[in-house]
């Protein structure tokens, strides 16, 4: 047996083996709509289980825990929900491949709660072409809700980054007189949109944006940027950044003896442990009084600690996501998204088709999502694919977030 022949045979055997197992494994359901059997509804989504953004996987994990809970109570309309999360390592191409797998191999009924702006945008065309619902994409990019007529199967959930920036801008405009704002933002769609929203909210007010600095998502530290912002003489600092960068910036501002008024967007403020780390047992006074935006009930807010919904949240986390950081509000987000999805599915009743789901989701009017702050509604319409557009302000005080003031509503794209 010569070498080349052996290699050829090996290649042949390998190919046949893989092909055979593939043929055996591939099961193409021949039902009207894939992903629905008499007993199960199959959902799937992508999230960064590995890689530098793996903290965002909590958005998916919270949803998974809530769905497990719903299943334990008998499911919805007699159906169990199976929710598969595939890793995309924050790479849009991996998200694309994983989404293809979810649709073509797992045969999901809908792609639900996939994390990340680029990742969702990369698969939007494909999912709309295949008429697979891209349900409650976990990203605040306004691009996802725009062009609802062109992409009817795509819908986000959370307030857009523009909306959040706008609320913060309006808050500053109304309370800070003639202040000067310095902004540190992440150089991508997330940070850029927050900045433009902030500017929009500050229009025609006496508050001005005095300096902006940005950082690349791969940066290790932002001391240079913070130092530059300080010399602008700003007395307000807005941080549109990932938790690790926020914490560093807060610490460094404190070091420099700079005590500006601080505002964060909701993603930056996601984990209470971040601000606790930054406050360094109370020695960092800069942290007290930080203002942020919220639409979810924060697990640390003393106002909700005794509420039924937070008790449910803690119970579900303990039982179905043991070991996860329950103080991370991203888990609450996941549950809010899952609750909404379950509601939408429930309303479809027996007519559980993708088209019906999209119809329901496109004309939602829900109050009473237990994980959202009271009074915040989920509302969509034919040209409005932005379900949540209301927010409250919250302030960090003595180790916890407390929401304050009335509800802010953003109208726009």
């Amino acid at each position, binding site marked *: 047996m010569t070498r080349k022949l052996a290699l050829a045979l090996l290649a042949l055997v390998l190919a046949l083996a893989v092909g055979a197992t593939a043929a055996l494994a591939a099961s193409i359901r021949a039902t009207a709509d894939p992903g629905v059997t008499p007993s199960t509804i199959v959902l799937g989504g992508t999230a960064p289980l*590995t890689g*530098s953004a*793996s*903290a965002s*996987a909590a958005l998916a994990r919270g949803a998974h825990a809530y769905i497990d809970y719903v299943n334990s109570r008998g499911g919805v309309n007699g159906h169990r929900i199976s929710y598969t999360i595939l890793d995309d390592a924050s790479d849009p191409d991996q998200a694309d491949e994983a989404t293809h797998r979810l649709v073509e191999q797992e045969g999901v009924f809908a792609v639900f709660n996939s994390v990340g702006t680029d990742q969702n945008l990369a698969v939007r065309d494909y999912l709309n072409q295949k008429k697979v619902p891209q349900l409650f994409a976990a990203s605040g990019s306004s691009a996802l809700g725009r062009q609802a007529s062109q992409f009817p199967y795509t819908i986000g959930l959370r307030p857009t980054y523009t909306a959040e920036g706008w609320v913060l801008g309006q808050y500053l405009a109304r309370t800070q007189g003639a202040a000067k704002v310095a902004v540190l933002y992440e*150089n991508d769609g997330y940070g850029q949109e927050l900045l433009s929203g902030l500017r929009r909210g500050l229009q025609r007010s006496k508050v001005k944006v005095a300096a902006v*600095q*940005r*950082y*690349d998502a*791969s*940066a*290790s*530290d*932002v*001391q*240079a*940027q913070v*130092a*530059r912002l300080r*010399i602008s003489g700003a007395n307000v600092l807005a941080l549109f950044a990932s*938790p*690790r960068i926020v*914490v*560093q910036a807060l*610490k*460094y501002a404190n*070091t*420099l*003896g700079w005590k500006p008024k601080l505002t964060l967007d909701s993603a930056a403020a996601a*984990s209470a*442990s*971040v601000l*606790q*780390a*930054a406050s*360094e047992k109370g*020695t960092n006074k800069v942290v007290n009084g930080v203002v942020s935006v919220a639409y979810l009930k924060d697990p640390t807010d003393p106002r909700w600690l005794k509420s039924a919904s937070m008790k449910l949240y803690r119970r579900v986390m303990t039982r179905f996501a043991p*070991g*996860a*950081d329950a103080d*991370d509000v991203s888990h609450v987000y996941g549950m809010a998204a899952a609750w909404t999805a379950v509601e939408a599915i429930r309303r479809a009743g027996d007519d559980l088709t993708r088209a019906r789901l999209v119809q329901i989701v496109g004309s939602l009017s829900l109050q009473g999502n237990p994980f959202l702050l009271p009074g915040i509604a989920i509302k969509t319409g034919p040209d409005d694919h932005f379900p949540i557009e209301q927010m409250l302000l919250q302030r960090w005080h003595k180790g916890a977030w407390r929401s304050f003031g009335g509800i802010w509503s953003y109208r726009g794209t």
Partner: protein
Amino acid sequence: MADFVQQVVAGLASGSIYASLALALVLIHRATGVINFAQGEMATLSTYIAWTLTTNHGWNYWPAFAFTLAVSFLGGAAIHQTVIRPNEKGSLLRVVIVTIGLLILINGLVTLIWGGEVRAVPSPFPSGTTEIAGVAITTQDIGTILVVVATVVVLWLMFQYTKIGLAMRAAAVNPAEARLVGVRVTWMLSLGWGLAAVLGAIAGMLAAPSVFLDPNLMAAILIYAFAAAVLGGIDSPVGAVVGGLTLGVGLNLIGAYVDFVGADLRLPVALLVILVVLLVRPAGIFGREEVRRV
């Protein structure tokens, strides 16, 4: 002017962190001829061990620090003995792939055990800031620079004046002849890895108080550390420190004053530095040019 000096000071502070990890890289390369791509992750792991001892088990800082160093030393040596040594005889590429495998594995391990949240790590130095003419320097920064300089001095003394140091140098330069004179070459290589792991742990524990701890603590710092090591001379501990400080200050100043670059392009600039140095003078500032005799 105060802004300029502040940028320089901030640059020295971050530069000393790059230098401390660069020292570990230099040590491994000098002792074993290998570039350890997993150096950063090993340092992160050590930092997590220190963190969990002080935060979750209530240890005091210094005992936790000492314990972490000891564990790191043993861990580094063990990694060399079990995973690296069998592959040393093979091509360079095999060792590179193994260190990359270690990088992936340890990064995942850290996330698996402790999760991805950001943690605060206590600092060995008292917190406090000195202000001189409008420029703020923390005690932490001063302490970091001092520790890094002290480490280099200790390393240099060890290599120049102790038997072990001599043995390590011999084992690295000419293993065959070293064996003939009785040097236990494999043990020297493992010792090199253990020491490098200790240096990495020190780097992590110096960095974490200001940069905060999460599984990707060292990811970006590793690249800056490579740049620093290459700039200073990949076999020179002194070069690593000088390279790190120069890099830190240089990057800050370029980021602050060259508009095209901006503070967010510091990483590519650092990489450009690596490229340019490698092309112009591969030995770096303090390295010795390799001369091949035919």
